[in-house]
């Protein structure tokens, strides 16, 4: 397969088993540049585990994950991040005691070593980038506020911003609209459409209306296995998918 040219991310035969239980089983996944891919499936389908495997949080039992030609399964988390893979967690994970600006600055991809961080200076370049990012994630007015004071939805945006400032080529978002109001979901969908330019997005989400709005392609997982893939309209009338969601 002509993987390297077309696809940012190729996952082949990815398998992980925990004490014999296969949480992800022989999964193949190809994500193109500029694509927003949604991964859906009932609870326990292994969606978050797939993100864990790609980001190095969980080690794969078998299979390979290639990102721009680099094999990720043998790398450690921070090395994967440095290659350009960003990951947002299911529950918003921001530094609550720091301000929004500091949160973004901490994620700025300079001064990542011990002494680099000690000598890190808040240059105008950094400041501009922080402001620019804050603008994109609708938090420009709140730069000086402590992140702990943000609403749940705003924290989700902040975490997206923390990925964005690293300018990753692959962004993985785990339930980006969980706990958001209708209005915030709307804004997040817009945000995702805007930031997907020039990079690939892999989104795990339960909210089907939201998935419909953002995803170019949808991959359905069931019990760790690939079940269906295609456009949302096709997938949602697929009898296999309907059966999985309904049960017997």
């Amino acid at each position, binding site marked *: 397969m002509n993987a390297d040219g077309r696809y940012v991310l190729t996952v082949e035969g990815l398998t992980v088993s925990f004490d014999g239980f296969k949480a992800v089983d022989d999964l193949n996944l190809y994500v193109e540049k500029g694509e927003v891919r949604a991964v859906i499936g009932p609870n326990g389908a292994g969606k978050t585990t797939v993100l864990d495997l790609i980001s190095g949080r969980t080690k794969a039992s078998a299979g390979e994950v290639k990102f721009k030609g680099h094999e990720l399964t043998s790398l450690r988390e921070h090395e994967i991040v440095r290659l350009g893979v960003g*990951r947002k967690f299911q529950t918003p994970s921001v530094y609550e005691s720091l301000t929004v600006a500091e949160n973004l600055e901490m994620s700025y991809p300079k001064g990542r070593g011990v002494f680099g961080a*000690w000598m890190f200076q808040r240059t105008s370049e950094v400041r501009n980038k922080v402001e620019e990012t804050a603008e994109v994630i609708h938090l420009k007015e709140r730069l000086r506020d402590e992140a702990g004071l943000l609403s749940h939805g705003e924290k989700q945006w902040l975490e997206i911003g923390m990925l964005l400032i690293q300018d990753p080529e692959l962004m993985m978002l785990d339930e980006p609209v969980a706990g958001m109001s209708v*209005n915030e979901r709307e804004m997040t969908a817009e945000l995702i459409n805007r930031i997907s330019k020039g990079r690939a997005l892999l989104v795990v989400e339960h909210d089907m209306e939201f998935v419909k709005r953002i995803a170019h392609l949808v991959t359905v997982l069931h019990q760790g296995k690939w079940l269906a893939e295609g456009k949302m309209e096709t997938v949602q009338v697929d009898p296999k998918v*309907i059966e999985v969601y309904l049960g017997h």
Partner: protein
Amino acid sequence: MAGGANQADAPGAWGPRRIWQRLSSKDHQTTGFLILATLLLVIFPLSMGAFRLNLLGKYLTYAFVALGLVVCWGHAGILSLGQGVFFGLGGYCMAMFLKLEASDPISTKIQSTPGIPDFMDWNQITQLPHVWVPFKSLLFTLVAVPLLPGLLALIIGTAMFKRRVGGVYFAIITQAIAAILSILIIGQQGYTGGVNGITDLKTLHGWDIRTDRAHMILYMVNVCLLLGTIVVSRRMLASKLGRLLLALRDKEERVRFSGYDVANLKTFAFVYAAVLSAIGGAMFTLQVGFMSPSFVGIVPSIEMVICAAVGGRSSLMGAVYGTLLVNFGKTFFSERFPELWLFLIGALFILVVMVFPDGVAGIRLDKIGGYWTWLRGRLGLGGAKDAPPGSSPPPVIGAVDSSALSAGSGGGVVGGPSTILPSVSVASERSAASRMKL
């Protein structure tokens, strides 16, 4: 929009907090630093006799350990119960140099092997062991004092943190290392002086360190090193590195997934603390005139943690005051009620943990409106509590989110199979609405 309403609330609701932030800003910290410097450099030396001042100097060497713990434990969240190891190693390095200088062939001519430390002679050792030879050089010793303990910490830190050993397990391992080293020192009497330690230290490069004048000079050197350490540590903690240490204490995964090697950061904090402890140990040997395994083992290591806790484990200045308080308390009480002291220090630790988690530094903070922050932290409430109702659910409800689809598929049953997925979205909108009521 939630953001706007929240913003309007912010200045009013966080008034006291803002005031505290202003007070604890750079100027305020500088004032605190100047007060400490004046106390240590002027007021104490003028008001205390030679004996008390030497005692104070001894306690201030523990303050180096406490400062290290502020960085390592208070900021990076790594509890080490083995700081005595590094204090001891630093102290032993210095003691070895001083002992060799005190063991010149003339003053040891009655030994069967003149020119080696007395305890070696008593243990039938006839030649200076190889590990002792480099310590004839002052330069080597001065380099070894921070370097050897730092290297040991680097090895321990790398081995533990790369394997993601942390928390209680790390604390237990450091404690075990403290036990191992003190047993090793006691067991290898011929090489280390055993349980008595290395005693009868006399001169540093020909300069008698036992006179009152020498004590005074060493005290001043000690204080200057301590103040310098505070300045450097404060800069470090105020840099991005310091914020990273704090961040990894609270959100380790986020730091790791922002492209940082968490193991390296933790190892740095641990090595930093070890080097400070070692400097303290060397200053201890110089001022007190001996070094023994009783400063290496588990008990002194834990006492040092208590000092840092009493001072306020994330406050540099607090660490100094905490150390002085605990140690003068120890001297005072153990003179009068020797059998009660251990219970007392235990009770003190419990009191600090339960009532004043921010130690001495925290009590002042409570008075200046920081109380609210503290309470908020204790109750584990995030900012969500202050967001206007409806803007977002409190974090606890997050657990519900992950089951949104299962709730949704319930809605799907009602809607009928052909429209399953769209109806899921309706259901999850509904569940979003119900969540907002929560």
